[in-house]
């Protein structure tokens, strides 16, 4: 039983935490600006599909990655326009984006790859196995921390998410900040998705994120909307996923260990945090509230 705790488990944890971290950091920008982003799942799917499709056509994973980022940003822009310009309910819009992004990739791949929702296999030399890992852990976490707490942009971002009226009075354009934040979240979730399709595996399959966008959201809440804590939460959730994979088929005292229970650890932990048993998770104050300038 305990021989599974080894170096391979550590690497596997980091690998599995990477897409979560990319999406969660994306969500952090969006939610810190006051826009709920339960569309992370859909944004990841957009990135994953576009990256795989473009890599297949162009034969170049970097073009694929870039396209995945652009797709994530574009879909996020739809979410942003609906939420900010038209003051739609952010959760409802997010749900719509998630449904849209299970449909569109399937529709497109059904038409162009004659498959039921997956892209063709991408050859091994056209995959990017490690760059997103470095990007997420070494570049984006410190960068986000710095931007959020030590730059005027970060200050405005947080102000817009906490008290948009005050930020507005101080001359910050609330819509512009929110558009920027939501589009950044799409770009980052897009990288996370791309890493799934052209990094960890070698093709896009229908619904390949299988709830990772929601786990990323859970990690963001578990990390109390802060970059370093969110990273730790992603590592924890990546670890549980790694354990679940390792435990498959392992017998403990003659009994198979049901991996369903390992799978739900992130969700249960998040519920516990939300109920306030481990510290208090306080969301940005203006989260979910459309801003309307007073006339």
């Amino acid at each position, binding site marked *: 039983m305990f021989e599974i705790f080894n170096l391979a488990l550590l690497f596997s944890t980091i690998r599995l935490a990477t897409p979560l971290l990319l999406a969660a950091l994306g969500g952090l920008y969006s939610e810190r600006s006051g826009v709920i982003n339960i569309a992370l799942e859909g944004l990841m799917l957009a990135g994953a599909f576009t990256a795989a499709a473009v890599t297949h056509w162009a034969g170049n994973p970097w073009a694929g990655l870039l396209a995945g980022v652009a797709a994530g940003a574009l879909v996020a822009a739809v979410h942003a326009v609906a939420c900010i310009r038209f003051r739609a309910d952010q959760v409802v819009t997010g749900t*719509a984006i998630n449904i*849209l992004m*299970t449909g*569109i990739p399937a*529709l497109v791949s*059904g038409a162009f790859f004659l498959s039921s929702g997956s892209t063709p296999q991408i050859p091994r030399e056209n995959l990017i196995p490690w760059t997103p890992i470095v990007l997420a852990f070494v570049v984006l976490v410190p960068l986000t921390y710095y931007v959020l707490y030590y730059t005027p942009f970060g200050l405005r971002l947080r102000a817009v998410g906490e008290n948009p009226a005050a930020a507005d009075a101080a001359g910050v354009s609330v819509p512009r900040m929110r558009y920027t934040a939501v589009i950044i979240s799409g770009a980052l979730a897009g990288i996370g998705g791309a890493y799934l399709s052209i990094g960890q595996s070698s093709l896009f399959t229908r619904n390949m994120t299988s709830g990772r966008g929601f786990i990323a959201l859970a990690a963001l809440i578990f990390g109390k909307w802060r970059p370093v804590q969110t990273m730790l939460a992603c590592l924890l959730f990546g670890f549980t996923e790694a354990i679940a994979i390792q435990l498959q088929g392992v017998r403990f005292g003659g009994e198979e260990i049901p991996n369903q229970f390992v799978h739900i650890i992130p*969700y249960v932990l998040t*519920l516990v945090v939300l*109920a306030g048993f481990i510290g208090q998770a306080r969301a940005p104050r203006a989260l979910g509230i459309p801003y309307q300038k007073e006339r």
Partner: protein
Amino acid sequence: MLMKLLRELVFPLVAVAFAFLVGGVIVLLIGDNPLEVYGLLLGSALTWPDGIGYTLFYATPLIFTGLAVAVAFRCGLLNIGAEGQLYVAAFATAWVGIKFGGTVVDVFGEPVGYGWATLPAFLLVPLAILTAVLVGAAWGAIPGWLKARFGAHEVITTIMLNFIAVALVSYFTQYFYKKPGDPIMQTVEIGAGAYIPRLGDFIPGIPARLPVSVAFLIAIAACVLVYLLLWRTKWGYEIRATGANPSAAEYGGISTRKQIVLAMAISGGLAGMVAISEVLGYRHRYYDGFSANYGFTGIAVALLGRNHPVGVFLAALLFGTLIRGGIFVDAFSEHVTKDLVEVLQAIVILFVAAEALFRGPFGRFGLLKRSKV
């Protein structure tokens, strides 16, 4: 009265029209003729008897989930946990059908030891239906309680509970109620005493091969009951008051916390009723992953139906039509697949949610000038 109804209808119809327009552009980009595709989508679903029979069958679970989301909405809550609620309820319902439905005999005639007792149908069916409602209600009440007690946002908690629900029932199915060696993740069959009849079994003129069952009639009854509950009872009044203005409701002596738990429980119970059509009326077992996103489509149904039982019923018929028609699109159109249905659903939700789209700059075109209800 008639004018009011018409006004209520205008906005959803405009939203659907816009969604079909955008969907048509997508179809065009993919390289098919939108008119042909829409002909397949709507035309094949509306033929008698098969088209309509299947459309009603697909609409049934959507009526339940649409009502579930609508009741929560009326209390100011967004229940995106209908998916989890219906999974837990479906498993529990199957469990009752297995345990009290008598001993199951496998293909070789060997008894499989799952049943405890054999209840007669007139007891078993009500018991199973009650289980569906109560278990769904209990699972729905959890996020309600978490919100009322700790202020935890119901959207996040219901998302988490969806995953937990799916994992739990898959665990029990895999380790306790699956027939040994069955490669499919499903429980053994429920006892025949728990089956509910198909409409074709007792209504002359409807072929018995159509899967639309008594559950459809129960769904209509649920629409009526939800209407009576929301607009004709004190409970309903308090739920709506809480949704309209929580602080005013609190000031008026309504315990909003209680209403939140109550509304989520009712919502979960309605979502759980999907088990009636899927488990008792159709599959006669719990089948892992049986729900084709009924819970999430319920959000679209409720939004399009303006959170009113009549609207929910009509919207569910529309989406039922799309699901049925999608099968024909898959089979007969050149490029487009049934995934178009999901895309249309999503665009409908986007348009309905971004209501201001039709009131803001476009409001000048006179589409909608009335202020929000």
